[in-house]
């Protein structure tokens, strides 16, 4: 390296430290805790004391006890539904954003991202009050004559969790889809027009396939965030809205069975890792960027 100014020798002296930090931080704060969880999942609890002897009992219990697997599958289906609904709602919004010009596009995008700045708990409270028996949703439906009296269909059950998670996580779906749509060169759309395609054909054959990587990223974001959430089901799920996240929470809290909680976490982590890998796999553009 030629010496370009005085800053460079200092930078060279610091660079090993920076390299060490770059590896140490993820190892210390991500990989190590995960490894500890994995190790704990092979321990057991006896009368409130953790027994540090390796056993497969936690996993046997997870796979054989009639309680856990059904909740596990139901939670996965719930979160897949959240991801699907989020994408169905986010895609038109993101598409609409890309049709706007200049500063309007980003102003509106910022507006859609504002909910991310608000406290999670406050948002859940707000949504709960909208969904509740005297909430805006019921009042609107009764006012429109769709319902004759307020319904309890929207709160303290699985529906409530579905609706709330969708509302909370939709910004995470809009952003990747918007970025994927925005990255499509306009000239490709003009080329499609030029070759005789109608605007619907251009959308279905060019825009949609080229935006699918963004859709895949959005789906994996929303799914991963939804499946890890225990606060939302806790607050709007009531008794019937029992999800895997709540079971996990209870193992670490009420039940004070950390090894079993750790085993459940490992099961959840496997699902999350699979979702991230799938998102990554389809989030890439067949290596065919221009």
């Amino acid at each position: 390296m030629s010496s370009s100014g005085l800053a460079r020798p200092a930078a060279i002296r610091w660079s090993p430290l920076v390299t060490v930090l770059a590896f140490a931080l993820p190892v210390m704060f991500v990989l190590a805790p995960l490894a500890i969880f994995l190790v704990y999942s092979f321990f057991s609890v006896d009368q409130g004391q953790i027994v540090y002897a390796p056993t497969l009992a936690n996993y046997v219990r997870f796979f054989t006890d009639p309680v856990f697997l059904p909740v596990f599958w139901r939670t996965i289906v719930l979160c897949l539904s959240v991801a699907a609904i989020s994408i169905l709602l986010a895609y038109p919004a993101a598409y609409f954003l890309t049709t706007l010009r200049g500063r309007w596009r980003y102003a509106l995008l910022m507006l859609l991202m504002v909910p991310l700045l608000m406290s999670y708990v406050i948002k859940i409270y707000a949504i709960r009050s909208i969904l509740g028996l005297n909430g805006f949703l019921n009042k609107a439906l009764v006012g429109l004559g769709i319902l004759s009296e307020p319904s309890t269909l929207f709160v303290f059950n699985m529906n409530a969790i579905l609706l709330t998670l969708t509302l909370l996580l939709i910004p995470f779906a809009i952003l990747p889809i918007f970025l994927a749509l925005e990255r499509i060169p306009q000239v490709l759309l003009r080329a499609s027009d030029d070759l005789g395609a109608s605007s619907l054909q251009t959308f279905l054959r060019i825009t949609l396939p080229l935006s699918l990587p963004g859709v895949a990223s959005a789906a994996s974001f929303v799914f991963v965030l939804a499946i890890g959430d225990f606060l939302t089901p806790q607050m709007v799920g009531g008794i019937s809205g029992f999800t895997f996240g709540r079971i996990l929470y209870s193992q670490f809290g009420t039940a004070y069975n950390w090894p079993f909680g750790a085993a459940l976490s490992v099961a959840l982590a496997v699902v999350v890792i699979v979702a991230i890998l799938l998102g990554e796999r389809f989030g890439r553009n067949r290596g065919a960027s221009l």
Partner: protein
Amino acid sequence: MNQTSDLLTLRSVSKSYGTVPVLHGVDLSIRDGEFLTVLGPSGSGKTTVLRLIGGLEPLTAGEIRLDGQDISGMPINRRPFNTVFQDYALFPHLTVAGNVGYGLSVRHVPRKEIARRVAQALELVQLGRFAGRFPAQLSGGQRQRVALARALICQPRLVLLDEPLAALDLELRRQMQEFLKSIQREVKTTFLFVTHDQEEAIGMADRICVMQAGHIRQLGSPHELYYRPNCEFVARFFGENNLVAGSLGETRGEFRAIETALGRLVCSVAGQPHLKAAATGARGFATFRPEALRLAGDGDAENRLSGAVADVAFAGSSTVVTITAGGDAAQRLRLRFPSRVEGSALRAGETVALSFAPHEGHLVLA
């Protein structure tokens, strides 16, 4: 080949972006089957002409007629034209065959026929083996040929080419020029080719339309433009040239004199009535090509110039001598002659007498 009928006509076509005008009432007729090049520096409006014809943008005023019918309001996907875009604009998620067949597939042509015509088109551009590749796996020249095949497969009345060679390196560009020209002869489709490179224009076009500042300055064959430029801009822009300013003098038959700081020069005005009719004393230029200029012999009575050799540059097949004439450092003349193995006898600083034949000189009005 019938080149007399007009395929497409632009009538007083104007275009403004907001309040900024980029085209000022352009009139242009494109003949059926010709290779027409629109040539101009950047900002001349040449790409705008192409975009208006292609339907990528609406006109501000005027009309575009195809076979005599106004198509100014026809949407882009209904126009029987196809464009080869500057950076090819291939669809990255489709294979070469998918790209080339796209125009047929959106028109619901049966699958078998698409396959047949795609194979044909790829054969035409010599890419038969690449049908299954993706654009990212192709070189620049190959992408270029895919884009051409994709445009030709729809059998358009007119192919619009927007500086398609600009991204290629010199050697490849030369090859592609020949290739484009031969394809055009083979398919006999009208090509409208936009470029800022005058060498490219000379090499490929049947006719060239020179544009500057939103106006068409001259339209004609490469030969006409080279030897009979109609204005100072074309005379300077199109090929290397010598210009000497002066005021017009008397007309004698097919020749007219111009009084310049370097003396009286006589140039041809054959077939150019506006030059014969121009008022005596009108400002103008004598123009003559570097290869028309030669060392004066004893017999040369007319168009004698003298100057000092400023530079002798060997350029391979030819040698270019730069001469400062009339003691004015700004008045430079260039003299080009075939190189010889023993080298040029001229040396810098030497005073030389030069001349050009009146029929090789030409006048343009200032």
